[in-house]
């Protein structure tokens, strides 16, 4: 992940509450500059070894309101560059918290996202929303494609909802789509 090129320059703006990275999406035409923030926040400890688990949050920052929109699609034509930029912060995070694990989920996987998206649909989706869960698909596809390389340094667990409120996490199976991923560096991997 650290070898990712074709990405934006990032600035770390961390504090005691969270580790934050800021970058500016300039898009293909370089006209619309969108500030984006990646935030790593502590959620809880893993029950087995008390290692901390952090959440990865990512979204567009609105300077006027001082808030984030994590469901926004700025459609700046730079989705892969933005994605690479997000990924490039993960090794930096693990340098700071080597024994931590990271929970990665997509904010476009919520039921209300699909509902809201259908209200303003630009893709003429009939039954299935094409934008639904796009981020998790992107993350899972990336891990699947690079699995052999990534598993040298990292451990990936994939979580799937059982539909009754529980999430079953198992070792990541390349090609499979998950509702959530837990990433940790191999030295401090999860014991199942």
């Amino acid at each position, binding site marked *: 992940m650290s070898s990712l090129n074709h990405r934006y320059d990032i600035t770390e703006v961390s504090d005691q509450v969270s580790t934050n990275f800021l970058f500016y999406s300039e898009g293909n035409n370089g006209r619309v500059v969108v500030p984006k923030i990646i935030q790593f926040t502590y*959620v*809880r400890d893993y029950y087995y070894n008390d290692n901390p688990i952090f959440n990865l949050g990512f979204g567009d920052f609105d300077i006027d309101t001082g808030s984030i929109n994590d469901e926004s699609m700025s459609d700046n034509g730079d989705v892969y560059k933005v994605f690479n930029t997000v990924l490039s912060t993960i090794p930096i995070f693990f340098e700071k918290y080597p024994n931590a694990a990271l929970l990665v989920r997509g904010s476009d996987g919520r039921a209300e996202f699909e509902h809201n998206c259908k209200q303003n649909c630009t893709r003429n989706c009939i039954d299935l929303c094409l934008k639904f869960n796009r981020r998790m698909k992107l993350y899972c596809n990336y891990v699947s494609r690079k699995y052999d390389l990534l598993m040298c340094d990292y451990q990936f667990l994939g979580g799937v909802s059982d539909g009754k409120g529980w999430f079953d996490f198992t070792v990541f199976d390349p090609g499979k789509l998950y509702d959530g991923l837990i990433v940790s560096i191999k030295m401090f991997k999860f014991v199942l």
Partner: protein
Amino acid sequence: MKQKETKPTEYVKVSKAWLTSLIASQIKGKILFPKKMEEAKKMLDHARFIKK
């Protein structure tokens, strides 16, 4: 007939460094994704780690 004058939106050019420090001050100490954090907590509280 006199046409109503509309004032154009004024833009101020600022440097990225200035913008970055403004954003840094705006996000300081804030949890920016409270909804996602809540969902993450829920997910981890209801997580089962299974050995296959």
